Structures are given as structure tokens and as C-alpha cells.
């Protein structure tokens, strides 16, 4: 700063040169930060997808929505049998009943969500007015509260049921998360991304250590699923849980697994993680609810 001031007062010629130089430098820095921001999500997604299609060349890209079964033939056969009498059917049924049952004010979920609840494909999204990520589960509770009902707990139970029904209604919709051209939206995406790749907990693992570089490896009896397609099929019936769970329940479980403290379901960081991770699967189909071991 001081140096610049001295130079600028040294005579008209030099000061002109200095001014031009400063303009050029500023423009260059702005251009570079613009490029690095805007090259972001799109090229991230392409590289992410390519990472998995190269690692598992036998798996068609559209099949990654089937989690570990997309890369593990033996367990796939068992799973296909399970899918004939899917364990999440009960959840869809009770979710459907909840969908049709009027609130105390005689409105229903249909007053909040269009298209008979087939709206999974609109979530998660960046809400520019609220400056935050809105997920389907968050919107379900906001619908309830706006109509004078108690909010539901986010991890399982009634929330998983209604979300399962809406996911079922939405089967086949394309994952198409949009990160708007907005510094706040970009920052949210970047936080989700940083979370995904950062090692955490006493065991010092990042999500990607297990579901990227470690995908296909065994952890105890489990084969690690590839991260591509990871958010397509939630909520999920998990035999280990003996019931349904939402995506954020899974996030919490995976955090605790590496002995990191979990965050609350629907906390800001988990919604941003969902935004990032769902964006990585753009172009694939939503196929929830799902069944897993």
C-alpha cells in the first residue's frame, strides 16, 4: 500500500503506468476467480461421474442408482428377490393414508405440493429469498406447521412414510439440481463439497475415502457402495435398522461410524451436503423408496 502511494506520486508518467497495471491485475484476478467459480459444479459433476464409470466400467451409468447392487452381482440377486415383495411397501401405504387425511384445518398436503405429491425431482433446491437449501423433508414439515400441525421428527417414522409415498409418486423423475448463478448458492454448494471430502472423526475418514476411492472394498461384511447415485432412492428400508430411514439418518450414521459427532437431521450442513451430493448425480433417475441391507 505504502509502496504504491510513493510510486503514484512520482510523476505523471509512472503513475499512469502504475494505474494501468493495477487495473490489469485487478481484472485478471476477477477473471480468474470468476472462472474458478463458474467452472465449478458442472465440471465437478462430469469428473465425479467419470471417476465412477471408469472405476466400474461394467456398470451402465443409469444403474448406479442401485447402490452397492450396481457393482456386486451376488448380492444383487438377493436384492432383486427382496424387491418382489418390497419391505418399504407398508411405508408407502401409511404415507398415502397420511397424504389423503385432512389436517385439523381440513387442508391436506395436496394444498402444499402439486402433482399428487410427485415432486421429488424439484428437491433439493436453493431458495434465493431465504438463502438456504430446501429439501423435501424440510418442505413437508413447513407444510404441516403452516397448517397448524406439529412438525415430524426427521430421521424415521411418519416423516419417512410420507417422504416414501412422495418418492414413490415421483419415480422416474430426473435428478436435476440447479446451482443458481448466485454467490450465496455457490458458497452453500462449496460447503457441502468441502464436507464430503474432509476427513473427520477419530478414524480420520472422509465420505469419499469410503464411497469414492474405497468403493467396492469390504468394510467388515459390507461392500462399500459408489457415491454416484447415492441420493436417488431415499427414504430407504434398511434391514439393519429394521425399518425406514431418511437420507439424513444415513448421513448421521456414516458420521458416527468414523467416530465423528453427527449433525442434526436437516441441519444447514446436512442440507448443503445433500445439495452437493444430489448435484453429483444429476441426469440419473429418482427411484425411491429403496431397500438395502
Amino acid at each position: 500500500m505504502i509502496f504504491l502511494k510513493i510510486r503514484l506520486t512520482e510523476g505523471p508518467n509512472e503513475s499512469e503506468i502504475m494505474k494501468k497495471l493495477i487495473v490489469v491485475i485487478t481484472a485478471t484476478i476477477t477473471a480468474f476467480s470468476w472462472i474458478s467459480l463458474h467452472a465449478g459444479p458442472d465440471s465437478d459433476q462430469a469428473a465425479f461421474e467419470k471417476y465412477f464409470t471408469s472405476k466400474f466400467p461394467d456398470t451402465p451409468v443409469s444403474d448406479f442408482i442401485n447402490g452397492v447392487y450396481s457393482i456386486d452381482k451376488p448380492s444383487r440377486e438377493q436384492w432383486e428377490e427382496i424387491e418382489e415383495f418390497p419391505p418399504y411397501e407398508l411405508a408407502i401405504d401409511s404415507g398415502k393414508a397420511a397424504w389423503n387425511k385432512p389436517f385439523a384445518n381440513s387442508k391436506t398436503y395436496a394444498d402444499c405440493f402439486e402433482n399428487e405429491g410427485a415432486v421429488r425431482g424439484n428437491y433439493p433446491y436453493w431458495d434465493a429469498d431465504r438463502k438456504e437449501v430446501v429439501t423435501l423433508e424440510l418442505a413437508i414439515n413447513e407444510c404441516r406447521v403452516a397448517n397448524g400441525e406439529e412438525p415430524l421428527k426427521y430421521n424415521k417414522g411418519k416423516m419417512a412414510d410420507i417422504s416414501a409415498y412422495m418418492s414413490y409418486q415421483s419415480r422416474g423423475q430426473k435428478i436435476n439440481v440447479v446451482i443458481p448463478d448466485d454467490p450465496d448458492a455457490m458458497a452453500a454448494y462449496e460447503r457441502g463439497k468441502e464436507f464430503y471430502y474432509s476427513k473427520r472423526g477419530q478414524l480420520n475418514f472422509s465420505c469419499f475415502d469410503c464411497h469414492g476411492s474405497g468403493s467396492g472394498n469390504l468394510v467388515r461384511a459390507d461392500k462399500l457402495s459408489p457415491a454416484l447415485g447415492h441420493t436417488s432412492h431415499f427414504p430407504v428400508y434398511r434391514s439393519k435398522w429394521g425399518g425406514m430411514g431418511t437420507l439424513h439418518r444415513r448421513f448421521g450414521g456414516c458420521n458416527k461410524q468414523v467416530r465423528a459427532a453427527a449433525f442434526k437431521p436437516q441441519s444447514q450442513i446436512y442440507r448443503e451436503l445433500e445439495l452437493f451430493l444430489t448435484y453429483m448425480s444429476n441426469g440419473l433417475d429418482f427411484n425411491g423408496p429403496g431397500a438395502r441391507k
Partner: protein
Amino acid sequence: MFKKVKTTAVASLVATIMTLGLMSYANVGIVSNAIASDGFESSWAAADEQRKMAAKLGFEWRDTKKLLKKAKAANESGENEKAMKLVAKAHEQSNDAIAQQERESSAWQSRVPK
């Protein structure tokens, strides 16, 4: 003349040593008193403060809170040594978690597929 100076010097040296000795004796007394009375409380509070710092950074470890709970229980049932060990372990976990955050604030980028 020479001799006299020497005696004075020796005397003052002895006096100094005695004073220092007394002072450190007094100090030890104060410190050990502190450990007995509020050493646990202040160590526990410092460890919990560190845990909160790790949590604020988003890097708290799963079991740190449990360790601090166990430490409190041990202290209440008079197992002071065990309690202090648990507190030390909890404190160390949070130090490690904070260091992990510091490392990861740049290291994560190396894992992003290019």
C-alpha cells in the same frame, strides 16, 4: 577485610537459599491444595471448552462428550485419578479434532476427482 566480606557473602547466600526453599515449600502447598479442591473442576471446564471449539469448527469427535460425562461421574464417586485421566483424554481428543480441521481446511481439495 577480605575475610569479613567472605563471611557476609556466605551468610547472604545461605539466607537466599533458605528463603527460596521456604518459598517453594509454600508454593507446593498452594498448588497441591488447588488440585485437591478445584483441580478437577477447572480441568474439566477447560476440556469442555476445547470440545465446544471443535464442535464450532464442525469437527467434534463422537465420544468426547461421553468421556467428559464419565469423568464427572468418576469424580463424584471419589475416583479422582480416573476422573483426571478421562478429562485428559477428552482434552486430547479435542486438540486432535481441531488439528484435523486445520489440516483438512486445505487437504480435502486433493481428493476431489479432476
